[in-house]
């Protein structure tokens, strides 16, 4: 646990602690001051960053981003205050705080970005910060595994999201959200709509841990408790929710949107609430109820009616308030008693009355009991669900009902049971938490109550503007505690009844669920391990295939890649037809002879098994090439080629004196695969050269050298002038290369052991 470290004496975490507390507090107050302005309408500010790519540092501040910003900075202030006491004496506390601030900046950027690419950059910053924070106790193997799992799941989703962002930006012609959100009809009618939607949802569902990508979130509880409260409950996991809400005016309102979101969200909510009942560790219980909340939010954003969006926005705030408070509370309990096991804890209200009060306030809100704001949240969810049509109404209402029943029961498990009854023995003697740790949960709990009593404030400043931003139209939003006797109220009463029954029997339910889980073949976490093992096995397989240590294999892979890539491009672009006008007419017999010499020399080199014949073939081809140079007006090149070719033949022959013979024909076999690769490379090269020669020729550079050669460099041989004057540095570089080759060859040959060559037979 968090206590096993050499303590460092710091007052509230030292300077790092003060900075970390001041940063979100100041921002919170600043944005709070902007609240009345934003309640009137959104604002967009921006500066250009990479204008050529349409990437701008622009900010979109509307009701939705405002709600998130206040949650991030407000809960951030509570969490940093808490952390300064909770981890302030940890030797790595400054590192912890820098990750936390990095996350905070990333999250703020994410919700404020008006540019999709900016949004993605900040999205990834939150992913990385989450990875670093989950793995904060890096000497714990489980923490490292959980961190990597979270990174891989959300990181993969992030990359898929990037693809979606780019496709959407291409379709819309802009990356600015404030413009894209007005093009909803065009985007929904576009043939790529479904692709965009699925790519976006892959990003949102992994980040917000929807089934079947949920498994990383309970594992992320390996992080220190303030991190769980902040990232993995109140803010980061809601980034996916934010994205769906943000894109609702552009992507929402279609059947695909409705059914994907309500089905995944509903299944996540109910699955998670059942799993929450199964857990014994209260932090794990809270983790699963977070999943449940994320599922519920997804479901209501998918439902898409004005009421549903309003319910989602309200529940977003409600959940962040009570869940952050509960997480911080269980951190205090853990700190004070040394355990988080529900079965062990009891009667704590006698020694930890303030913690118990915070827990009670948050849990009553979670259970949806009046007069807490949680009650209003639940009422509006039922109203929204009942307001839908057809099967959707049944599905959404039922799922919301099931989730609410479980939330009621879980509220009892996490906040009633540990504090009620007789004090039970715990690993440590319990004591009340210090004020910095109590302040956050108490204030958040109190807010749950205050907003319940005066819901109008919440509606006017936050939920109303946020609903406008997400729904796209301005419709009145009024929140109230008492809505008269209606269907929603009856459902609420049924919720309390069912929730109470579940709570009474929760221990036997848990045992039965545990027994069922033991028999169930579906285990997402183990499945993840199998998936990773599969990837590793695949990587090992393809390494063995492509990089097996054999030079032959490397060469074959490289040439085959060339053939497939260049040849494939030719085929796909239909460029083979575009190589006309090159005929064999009018070729002089001398030219035929020279080309014949080259071809014959090349074939001879391949065919022969005698080294001397091979050298002769090589030389013949080289001399043929130099004859081509002479024929087509390149005397200097031809002379050089001839000299070099003679030198090559001489050098190779000398070295052959000490090297073994080629294997005899009987010992070699025709390599069909290699012949295909070689033939393909030759064919592609031929087409490449033919298409180059068939295109129009740009002589500008040549003309420049022709007209400046004499007046500026006083040389009449243009080629020479280029080499020694215009491109003199290149030539100097060439000399250096040859010198290096000579020195390296000398080093290789010096002191080489001598070996007698075998006899030719």
């Amino acid at each position, binding site marked *: 646990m968090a206590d096993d470290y050499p303590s460092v004496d710091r007052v509230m975490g030292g300077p790092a602690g003060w900075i970390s507390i001041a940063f979100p507090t100041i921002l919170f107050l600043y944005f709070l001051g902007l609240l009345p302005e934003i309640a009137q309408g959104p604002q967009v500010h921006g500066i250009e960053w990479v204008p050529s790519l349409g990437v701008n540092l622009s900010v979109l501040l509307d009701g939705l981003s405002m709600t998130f910003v206040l949650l991030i900075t407000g809960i951030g202030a509570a969490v940093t205050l808490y952390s300064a006491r909770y981890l302030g004496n940890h030797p790595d506390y400054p590192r912890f705080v820098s990750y936390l601030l990095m996350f905070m900046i990333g999250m703020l950027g994410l919700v404020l970005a008006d540019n999709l690419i900016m949004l993605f950059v900040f999205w990834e910053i939150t992913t990385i910060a989450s990875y670093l924070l989950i793995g904060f106790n890096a000497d714990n193997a489980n923490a490292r595994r959980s961190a990597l799992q979270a990174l891989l799941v959300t990181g993969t989703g992030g990359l898929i999201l990037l693809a979606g962002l780019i496709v959407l930006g291409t379709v819309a012609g802009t990356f600015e959200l404030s413009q894209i959100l007005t093009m909803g009809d065009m985007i929904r009618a576009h043939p790529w709509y479904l692709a965009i939607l699925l790519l976006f949802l892959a990003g949102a569902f992994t980040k917000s841990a929807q089934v079947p990508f949920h498994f990383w979130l309970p594992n992320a509880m390996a992080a220190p408790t303030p991190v769980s409260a902040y990232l993995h409950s109140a803010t980061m996991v809601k980034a996916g929710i934010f994205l769906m809400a943000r894109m609702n005016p552009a992507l929402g309102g279609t059947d695909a949107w409705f059914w994907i979101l309500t089905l995944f969200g509903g299944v996540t909510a109910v699955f998670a609430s059942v799993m929450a009942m199964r857990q014994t560790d209260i932090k794990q219980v809270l983790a699963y109820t977070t999943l449940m909340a994320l599922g519920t939010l997804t479901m209501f954003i998918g439902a898409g009616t004005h009421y549903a969006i309003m319910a989602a926005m309200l529940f977003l705030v409600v959940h962040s308030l009570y869940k952050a408070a509960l997480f911080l509370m269980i951190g205090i309990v853990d700190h004070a008693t040394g355990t988080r096991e529900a079965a062990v804890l009891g009667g704590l209200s006698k020694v930890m009355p303030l913690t118990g009060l915070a827990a009670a306030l948050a849990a009553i809100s979670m259970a949806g009991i009046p007069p807490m704001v949680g009650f209003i949240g639940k009422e509006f969810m039922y109203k929204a669900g009942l307001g839908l049509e057809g099967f959707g109404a049944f599905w959404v209402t039922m799922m919301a009902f099931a989730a609410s029943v479980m939330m009621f029961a879980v509220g009892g498990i996490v906040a009633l049971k540990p504090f009620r009854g007789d004090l039970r023995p715990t690993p440590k003697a319990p004591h009340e938490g210090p004020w910095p740790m109590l302040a956050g949960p108490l204030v958040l709990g109190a807010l749950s109550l205050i907003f319940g009593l005066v819901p109008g404030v919440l509606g006017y400043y936050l939920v109303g503007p946020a609903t406008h931003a997400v729904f796209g139209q301005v419709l009145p939003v009024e929140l109230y505690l008492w809505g008269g006797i209606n269907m929603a109220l009856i459902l609420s009463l049924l919720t309390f009844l069912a929730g109470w029954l579940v709570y009474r029997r929760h221990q036997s339910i848990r045992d039965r669920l545990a027994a069922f889980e033991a028999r169930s073949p579906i285990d997402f976490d183990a499945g993840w391990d199998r998936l990773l093992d599969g990837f590793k096995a695949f990587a090992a397989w393809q390494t063995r295939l492509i990089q097996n240590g*054999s030079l032959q294999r490397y060469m074959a892979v490289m040439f085959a890649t060339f053939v497939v890539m260049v040849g494939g491009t030719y085929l796909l672009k239909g460029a083979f037809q575009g190589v006309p006008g090159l005929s*064999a007419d009018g070729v002089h017999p001398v030219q035929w002879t020279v*080309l014949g010499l080259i071809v014959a020399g*090349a074939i001879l080199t391949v065919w022969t098994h005698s080294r001397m014949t091979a050298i002769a073939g090589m030389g013949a081809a080289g001399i043929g090439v130099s004859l081509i140079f002479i024929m*087509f007006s390149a005397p200097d090149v031809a002379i050089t080629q001839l000299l070099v070719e003679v030198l090559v033949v001489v050098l190779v022959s000398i070295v052959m004196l000490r090297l073994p013979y*080629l294997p005899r024909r009987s010992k070699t076999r025709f390599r069909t695969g290699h012949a295909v690769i070689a033939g393909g490379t030759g064919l592609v090269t031929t087409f490449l050269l033919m298409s180059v020669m068939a295109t129009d020729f740009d002589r500008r550079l040549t003309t420049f050298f022709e007209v400046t050669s004499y007046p500026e460099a006083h040389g009449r041989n243009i080629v020479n002038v280029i080499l020694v004057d215009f491109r003199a540095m290149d030539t100097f570089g060439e000399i250096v290369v040859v010198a290096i080759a000579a020195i390296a060859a000398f080093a290789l040959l010096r002191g080489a052991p001598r070996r007698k060559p075998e006899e030719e037979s």
Partner: protein
Amino acid sequence: MELLLALSVGVLVAASVYLMLDRNILRFLFGLALLSNAVNLMIFASGRLTPGAPPLIDAGEYAPTGVVANALPQALVLTAIVIGFGLLAFTLALVYRTFMTLGTVNSDEMRVAEPVDAGKEAGK
């Protein structure tokens, strides 16, 4: 002529690739020599073929009179020939030293840096 030259370059490339795929590094060496010729020819030909008009400026003139061959690829190929020669000479020394030290010209038997067992271990 362009078609035939392109075909010849193709044959040269095919022959050199087949040689370079041989596990006998002497044949690899022959392939390397042929390949540098093929590539030089290709660079030269992509600057277009102009028979009988070397890129020279007649005495008394300030620029070539009439169309002369493209000087630029010629300059490039000149450089490439020399670099190719340097490469080949170095490879030759490397092959020689390799045989003197390891006693083999079979690339599959040169596993000092990457032993076969290590490859299998890494694959697991």
